[in-house]
Every structure is written in C-alpha cells, then in structure tokens.
C-alpha cells in the first residue's frame, strides 16, 4: 500500500511540475468574470437595443397615425422610413430570445417571413383578428407592415389609394394601426421586464446548467446565427434547403432594396455581440469572445480570433451582393451560395469548437462521455 501511495504522490508531483511549464501561456484562464460579461451584454447591448427599438416603434406608430389621418406620399414615405429604422434596430434584438421575449414569442410575432398575404387580407376584412394568435404569426410584424406599405399597390399612388379611396380604406388603415400597436406593446412588455428585475437575475445566472441565462444566451446566439441569419436571410432564398432557389423568401421582399442591408445589419449585430461592442457605440466590454479566449488552451491558435475573422470574411462576401437579394438569387445565385458557405464556416466554429471549449451544458440526460 505504502508503495502505491509513494508512487502516486511521485507521479502527481512529477506531472504538476511538468504541466506548469506548458501552461505558462494560459495562466489567466481561471475565474473569468462571467457575471461581468452578462452585465455588459445586458446593460450595454440588450437593454439599449430594446429601448431604441421601443422608441423606433413609437415613431412608427405616430407616423402611421398621421398617415392614416391624411394618406399622402409624404406620410407614406415617413412611415416607410420609420419602418426601416425600427426593422434595422430589430436586427440587434432578434437573437435575444430569452426571458419575456421567449415567453411572448417575440421573434415569431415580429419577423416571420414570407408574410402571408391571404391571411392579412382576411384579417383586414375580419376587422377584429387576434394578432397575437399563433396562426397569425405570418400576418403580423415587420414583414406584414412592409406588405401594407410597399405591396398593396403597383406604385406609391395605388398604395396611397389603398388607404384613401379603396372601398375598405378604413379597415386597411385600422389593420396597419393595429399591426404597429401590437409590435409596440410586445416590445414595451419585453423592455419593461428587462428593466424590472429580469436584468438582475440575468446577470447573476451564470451556472453551467441547461437553464442558466448564460447557457441559454449562448445557445440562443448560436441558434439565431444558424437559423435566423444564415438560413433565413441567405440560405433559404439561395435554395440551400430546397431543390431550387426561392427568391421570394428573402427578408424585405416588398421593399426590394433592403434585404442585403438588413442581413448586413444582422451580421453586424452578431459580431458586436461576440466582441461585446456596446449598442450604437464603438466601446467594447467583456464578451463571449473574451470568454472563449480565457478558456483557450493554445494561445497560438486563437479560436476567438478565428471566429471574428470568419465573421469578417462572411461580411465581406455579403457586401459583394446586390442590394436586392431576391434579384441576386435570380441573376447570380453562386454569389449567394458563396456567402452562405462563409456564414456556414462560422457555424462549425461556434457549434463545434466553441461549444467544446466552453463545455456548455445544453441537455439534461445521463451521459458517461461514451
């Protein structure tokens, strides 16, 4: 027994001395300030973005109200500008499907596209449709508003007529008003929740469990990047998941010229999340990127740098596309596919390399590491 004990202690001593030599490059891996990271993300990214979105939607509501009072080109254009501003801001919050946003299914009520024109027309005639109902998810939100202000006529005058001389003009106006009101009230609800306690539980929920805010946030982020950004904005229109391309599945179908801009903004939001860059500012704080760096074992082969670089490559590829992704699919889909490929490379880095490194707990089932 004593021999085994001595052997054991000798080996431990040997190994710990030995290991201290190669671990010199990762000495600061310990005790990363996870709560600090969550605080930065909540206070400087999530809450400011939701606050901005809430203001943008208030503006949109006002513009729609005045456009409804006297439908004219100036009012239509002001409404469109307000819609685009809010939609742009939305790209910064869609990934935060956590807390109240998850509870009210915010993303499903704000940005399901393509929007369902038949449902919208039925809702208009109904005059009293429940816009919060699940089966109306594809008849509300930004894509529905977009249809209402871009798709209800062949030119601007026809669209203005839709709200003035059309036989259903008052119902049409009411639906537009209801849409923006629903979006505003949902956003207000989520923002209020963040400002009234959720923020505190969020920043302190940093355990490594399937339900902690930290793990949920990272999983939401990856899920959004893979599904909301990579698949919905680029992959599906490019025909990655179908036998042929689907140019009418782009985000911003009716306005035509904003699909690339929205995707670019979304990717920018993803990059700012990853590097902890404050909303509407160039300041950065503790981020997922820092967390990855702190967990890395090989300083010469930095994963966080590789992920950032891959985002940049994808952004560059995306910037070569036509402003109208739908026409990009029709004229040269290869460029779309190349953009998808670059976005896809980051998925592997996030889902395989990063998740292994952080060993984030996603599911509760017994496992003995096989």
């Amino acid at each position, binding site marked *: *027994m004593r021999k*085994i004990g001595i*052997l*054991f202690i000798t*080996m*431990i001593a040997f*190994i*710990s001395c030995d*290991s*201290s030599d190669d*671990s010199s490059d990762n000495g600061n*891996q*310990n*005790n990363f300030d*996870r709560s600090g990271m969550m605080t930065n993300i909540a206070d400087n990214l999530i809450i400011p973005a939701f606050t901005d979105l809430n203001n943008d939607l208030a503006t949109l509501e006002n513009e729609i109200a005045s456009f409804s009072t006297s439908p004219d080109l100036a009012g239509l254009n002001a409404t469109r500008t307000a819609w685009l501003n809010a939609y742009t801001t939305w790209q910064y919050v869609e990934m935060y499907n956590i807390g109240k946003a998850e509870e009210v299914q915010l993303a499903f009520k704000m940005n399901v596209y393509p929007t369902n024109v038949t449902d919208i027309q039925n809702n208009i005639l109904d005059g009293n449709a429940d816009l919060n109902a699940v089966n109306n998810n594809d008849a509300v939100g930004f894509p529905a508003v977009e249809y209402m202000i871009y798709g209800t006529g062949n030119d601007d005058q026809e669209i203005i007529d839709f709200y003035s001389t059309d036989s259903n003009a008052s119902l049409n106006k009411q639906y537009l008003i209801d849409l923006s009101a629903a979006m505003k009230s949902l956003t207000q609800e989520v923002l209020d929740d963040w400002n009234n306690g959720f923020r505190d539980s969020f920043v302190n929920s*940093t*355990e*490594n*469990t399937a339900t*902690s805010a930290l793990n949920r946030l990272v999983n939401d982020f990856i899920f959004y990047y893979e599904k909301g950004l990579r698949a919905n904005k680029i*992959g599906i229109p490019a*025909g*990655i*998941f*179908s*036998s*042929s391309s689907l140019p009418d599945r782009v985000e911003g179908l009716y306005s035509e010229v904003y699909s690339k801009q929205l995707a670019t903004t979304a990717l920018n939001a993803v990059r700012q999340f990853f590097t902890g860059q404050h909303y509407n500012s160039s300041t950065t704080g503790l981020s997922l990127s820092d967390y990855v760096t702190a*967990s890395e*074992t090989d300083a010469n*082969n930095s*994963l966080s740098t590789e992920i950032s670089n891959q985002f940049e490559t994808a952004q560059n590829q995306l910037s070569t596309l036509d402003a109208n992704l739908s026409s990009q699919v029709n004229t040269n889909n290869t460029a779309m596919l190349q953009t998808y490929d670059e976005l896809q490379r980051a*998925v*592997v*880095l996030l*889902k*395989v*390399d990063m*998740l*292994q*490194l*952080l*060993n*984030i*707990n*996603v*599911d*509760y*089932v*017994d*496992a*003995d*590491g*096989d």
Partner: protein
Amino acid sequence: MKEHIKSYLLQPINSAPLAVFRIGFGIMMFLSIIRFWSNGWIEKLYLEPKFHFSYYGFEWVKPLGNITYLIFFICGLSALFVALGWKYKWAIVTFFLSFTYIELMDKTTYLNHYYFISVVSFVLIFLPAGRRFSIDNYAFSKANKKPLPHSIPRWTILSLKVLISIVYFYAGLAKINSDWLLRAMPLKIWLKSKYDLAFIGENLMQQDWFYYAMSWSGMLYDLTIPFLLLYKRTRWFAYILVIIFHVFTRVLFPIGMFPYVMIVSALIFFDASFHEQVLALIKNIIPEKIKHWIKPKPISYKPSRVNLIIVSTVIAIQLLLPFRHLLYPGELFWHEQGFRFSWRVMLIEKVGYTSFKVVDKKSGESFMVDNTDFLSSFQIKQMSFQPDFILEYAHFLEDHFTKQGHSNIAIYVDSYVALNGRRSTRFIDPEIDLTKEKESFKNKNWIIPFNDEIKGL
C-alpha cells in the same frame, strides 16, 4: 492442476454475498426505472423522436409506442421481484430481456453502465441468487419441499467479482493514453466547466495541476481497485475509495445511477460474515410474523455444469471484446469502431456538426436536410460524431426522400468533429455517396483519418 482448479471453483461457500447482491441489484434497478420514468425520459428518448438509431443486427428492436411504457413497467416490476427473490428465475430472465430490449431500442442512449447491467443480469440468470433470503425460499419451505441450499459453489460469486474487476481494470487500461495522461484531456475541459460548484468550483476546478492529478489518480484507481478489493487486508480501504471516487464522479458528471450501482455491487467483495450481518440487519426490519422465511437448513447444492460453462463464456467474451478495435486501422477515439462495449468510460469529449446534402442524380438538383425535422437535439448531438449513426441516418434519409417521390438519390455529408479540445477537422469524406455504403463490421474507409496522434492502449 485441473482437479485443483475444479475443486477450487466448486468448493461450497456461504451464499449470503450472492443474496445481498441480488437484493441490492434488484433495488437499484427498480429505482433506476422509476427515476428514468419520472424524469420523462421514456417520452423524450423513445416516444417523441421520429427515428431511432439501431444497433447493427438489432434493427428490429424499436420503441413500441405506448407499449413502451409497459416494457418499462415490466422491467421495473421484474427488478422488484428479483430483489424479493420471488419467482427468481422468471424475474431475472424477464428483467434481462426487458432491460436489454430497452437498451437496444435506440443506441443514442448507449451507456457503458447500461451494458454492464445487461451483462450482469444475464449472468445472474445462471447463478443461484434466488436461493437465499427470498420469497421463493419461503414458498419452498412452506410446501414442505426440500429447503433450498445455504451454500453455493465458489464460482458463482467469483464470476461477479471477475465481471466487476474487468469493468474497472479495462477502464483503467483505456486511460493509459497520451490524451488522458499527458494532456489531462478530456478532464481539463470537463472540470474547468464545473466553475459553478460550491467551494471548489472557482479554485480547485480551475487549477491545471488538479486536472492532471485527477487523470492520473483515476487511471491508477481503475487499475488497482479490483486487486485492493480482492485482497482482504486492503478491502475496507479500497471500499472507502470506491465510495469517495463514485460520489465524486456523481457530483461532477451526469452519470445517473451508475455510481450507486457500483458502490452497491462492490459489496460482493466482502466476506460472507459481512453479508450475514447485512442479512441480519435486514431481518431486523422485517416484521416478526414473516421472519421464519429466512431460516432454511443448509444442504449441499449440486451446481449445473452448463451454467458454469455459460458464465465462463460470458467472462471470456468480456475479456476479449474490448480489444476488437485492434482489427481497425486508425485512431479508435476518432472513428469509434470497436469503442462501445469495451469499458471505455469518460474518455473522450467529442463535438460534431454533420449536415446532409440530398442530391437528385438525374436533375443534379440538391438540398440540405434540416436535421431537426427528424431527430431530437440529443440524437443530433450523438449522430454528429459517430460514423455508424451518420450512415444509418443517411439511409433513413434516402428512404424518406425516395418515398417522397425523389428517385436516384445520392447523399453526401458535410461533417466536422472536434476531439478532446483539438480544433475541429473534417470527419467524413464529402465526396462519398453514403447511400452506396452499407453498415458492416468492415472498416469504414470513408472516415477521414485523424490528423493527430494519441499514443497508448
């Protein structure tokens, strides 16, 4: 010499350890089934997924809708009967069959300890474990039949000790590799992520030396614990180690009932006198009225030679099967051919990302499959880094899309895997049409070889 071995194996010994083992095993299994059921895992793992991954040769074993509940019920009930020693033969056969059926339904849930339970319950079929401290025993005495024997041949208890020793020793052998000992992988990844543990999470769990200490001591523990348990003078010390080790792993890892199963199973190494005390203890909590069950007269027991042969064969298979990976070229941890059923426990941290491209060979049109349409998140996770899963799923997709009206389908995969903290690399040859590959025991040459080396056993 032969006579010597024979008389050693057949020497009658006290049956108390086997009775305690049977009771402990039955209770643990009963609790396992209850735990599994109450966690909602029957729905989650067997009823909700649309597709199940089968073991090669057992494709006919599938969940049976709501009848799956009945299988679990039967399994739990038979475990209880085993513990009580009631219709023992029927109970243990039923338990073995139902438990093994459950495990064969979907290999996504493969765990070494489930396999261990199948092996032990199979061996228990051929051991006279129901002959002591059991309802059977009481029933026999009541009917004025010959009381069941108090002594049993040595090989019966020995075989269980050998099985448990194999689990530990082989798990220890598997840890003798460069990733485990020289990189402290995968413990470094796993322990570091336990930062949320009370007291030790933010300090001990973040120390480099601690990962190495745990790796080395884990290896030494696995290799030596069978001998320390077998040797009388170190037995108590060894058993305390067993408890500490397994409780520690229970705290750190989601390994369910396994630690408790091993803690209870290892009691078999103690002398009969210890087990007599355990039985006496249980006797004390049994109501006075039914106490006389447990006092049969000892008589001699003639063991079946067939049983000895069957049990010896199981043990021989256990000794050889873990080495079958030697028949495959390349890195075992990477290709996993011969990885299961070989007590390679907690050895690898693997994450994969595998997506499938369905190509219509006639039109040249193609599309990527959304795995969430067919698989649960747990299935996707397991499928993504195990070649046999990838192939089976590819064949399922082929069938599915052929039924949908596509013809002449080819299926390619885009697959990346990271092993033990290394950067991910391509896992499956993207040029290979998986519909052309068939599952077999032959080497899967469409797995891209590991681009690093792990030295060791």
